[in-house]
């Protein structure tokens, strides 16, 4: 289904849409308050952009450097060309350590590779330990936001879900009680786990270490207890030096939730005594995205979610309407690179207002890339008949000023005189959920001419 079709399902519950819209705008507002406190914020964003651009232009060498240093640190490094290979590698590591129970902290990459169903099919229990991710896992859904995975669910739904799966008491959706019960439930899972899987926020080439950021402490509760730690990362997570963390850790949490830093920014470099540590480096379409000059900066993304919180379309259509691992504006420029046909409606899920680019901590020109994908998609994928014809007619009309003027006159008259049933007919998608304005008597040209003449007098 297209984005607009899925969005119309989400839009059926108007109260929920309203809540979703306001909740995310509140997060965006917290981001503003937080970044305005930082002196030199724009310079910091420029640095973020510049460091990422440099790294991508030398990515092969930085990965080689990272691998060599990681091996020196007693970390085993694996490489996966695609999601399938990634899943096989992770499964093999678990098998070799006779693991049956896995705890996993948030990792959009493992979502992208569909790791959970793969491991479950091989009889391995995988527990998502971020509270939001655990909620959507119990509901057999996917995260609808990369930082706030369960933002589409209200507390009463969580209450019901926990009663059903964790045996909690009815509590009228009390978040404190529900979080406390989840804590007890997840403690058991942490204690029993054979293997801990985490994502990677930043991997540092010159030290061979990597950083994982969480607010809940779930990455460390997993990784510091289980005898095996597997960290999965996309090739683009590399930064050259440790000092660059100073830039990115200042940018990340402020952009994501307005916090000055996440509660835990854990720096893993060597496994603890008696533990095994693995890193899986994954391509899965990233090298191809790097080959596209117009779109390669989409690989700068540090997964803060700010573009989602600010997007008027995302806030009112919900993350699931994108039907992609990464929803929202950034997802809409990443996904078409993976499957142009499947994701052909996503670059159109935007007003091109540019708010996403304004808040992006690493200055990705998201809205220009949305526009550029539209150019490609319109040429390469079949467009709906009505849209294609309308565009053709519009193109002809706009090409001749005299014709434009004549049509304009007719439309202004129609808006004033025709009944609403005709104006808002099925063909006019703009009239679907709104009334069109009353047609003015003058065109802008006429008004301008008249004004000029009056000034002469």
């Amino acid at each position: 289904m297209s984005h607009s079709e899925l969005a119309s399902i989400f839009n059926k519950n108007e109260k929920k849409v309203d809540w979703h819209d306001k909740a995310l705008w509140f997060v965006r507002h917290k981001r503003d308050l937080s970044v305005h406190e930082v002196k030199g914020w724009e310079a910091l964003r420029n640095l973020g952009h510049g460091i990422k651009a440099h790294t991508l232009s030398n990515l092969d060498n930085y990965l080689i450097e990272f691998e060599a240093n990681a091996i020196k640190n007693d970390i085993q490094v694996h490489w996966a060309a695609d999601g399938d290979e990634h899943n096989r590698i992770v499964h093999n590591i678990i098998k070799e350590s006779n693991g049956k129970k896995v705890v996993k902290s948030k990792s959009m990459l493992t979502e992208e590779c569909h790791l959970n169903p793969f491991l479950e099919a091989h009889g391995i229990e995988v527990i998502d330990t971020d509270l939001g991710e655990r909620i959507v896992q119990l509901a057999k859904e996917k995260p609808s936001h990369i930082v706030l995975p369960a933002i589409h669910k209200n507390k009463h739904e969580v209450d019901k879900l926990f009663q059903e799966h964790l045996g909690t008491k009815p509590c009228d959706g009390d978040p404190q009680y529900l979080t406390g019960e989840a804590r007890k439930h997840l403690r058991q899972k942490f204690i029993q786990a054979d293997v801990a899987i985490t994502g990677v926020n930043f991997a540092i080439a010159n030290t061979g270490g990597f950083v994982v950021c969480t607010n809940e402490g779930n990455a460390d509760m997993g990784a510091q207890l289980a005898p095996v730690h597997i960290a999965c990362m996309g090739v683009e997570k590399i930064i050259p030096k440790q000092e660059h963390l100073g830039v990115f850790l200042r940018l990340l949490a402020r952009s994501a939730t307005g916090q000055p830093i996440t509660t835990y920014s854990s720096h893993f470099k060597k496994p603890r005594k008696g533990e095994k540590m693995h890193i899986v480096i994954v391509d899965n379409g990233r090298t191809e995205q790097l080959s596209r000059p117009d779109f390669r900066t989409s690989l700068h993304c540090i997964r803060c979610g700010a573009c989602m919180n600010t997007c008027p379309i995302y806030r009112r259509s919900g993350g699931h309407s994108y039907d992609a691992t990464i929803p929202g504006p950034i997802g809409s420029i990443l996904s078409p690179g993976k499957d142009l046909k499947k994701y052909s409606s996503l670059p159109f899920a935007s007003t091109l207002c540019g708010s996403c680019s304004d808040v992006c901590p690493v200055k990705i020109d998201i809205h220009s890339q949305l526009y550029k994908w539209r150019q490609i998609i319109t040429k390469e994928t079949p467009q709906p008949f009505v849209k294609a014809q309308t565009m053709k007619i519009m193109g002809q009309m706009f090409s001749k000023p005299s014709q434009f003027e004549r049509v304009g006159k007719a439309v202004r008259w129609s808006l004033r005189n025709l009944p609403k049933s005709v104006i808002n007919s099925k063909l006019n998608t703009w009239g679907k959920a709104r009334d069109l304005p009353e047609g003015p008597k003058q065109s802008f040209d006429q008004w301008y001419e008249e004004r000029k003449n009056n000034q002469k007098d």
Partner: protein
Amino acid sequence: MNSRDQILAKLKTNKPKLIDLPLIETSIFRDEGLDIIKEFIKKVEVVGGNVLEVTSNQDVINKIESTFTNQEVCYSHIKGTQGFNTISLETIQNPHDLENLDVLILESTLGVAENGSVWLSDQEIPVRVLPFITKHLAVVISKKDLVEYMHEAYSRLSGFNYGVFLAGPSKTADIEQSLVIGAQGALSITIFLKQ
């Protein structure tokens, strides 16, 4: 070709021409009038922690014992406070045995004013899971060990095998955006500031 070589070859072909690495000029971020200690205290409170000023390690113990009464399992890793400990780490076979830890006291030698975080590395954490598995965490830090920004913090860091910037108690807002303190990690954090 194996996946490693394949990926590296593709990156080599597909990457753009080398772009210069920008230098980090930290002077543009510096706020000359900033009171580091005041800012640090403010930010620790913003991220949900408490700050208490103390004169000695014994003072830390006294204050903890009056705040957290009747705690069963306690461990302190700061000098001269062995009397506080109810467990010995030597007898801990496995990090899982720390599951019932109530109060933990650690020392940090680096705190960051702009975000209220303290740095804890394996030099300060005898078992890595400690600051996460404990119910209540206390961190002692000297005022002289506070820096303004993350840039200064990183210029002081080297030679660790594991370390964490820790800011406030563990928290989540995953249920309807309501902030709940105490997710999977510590339920509270108290920073003890020494002269």
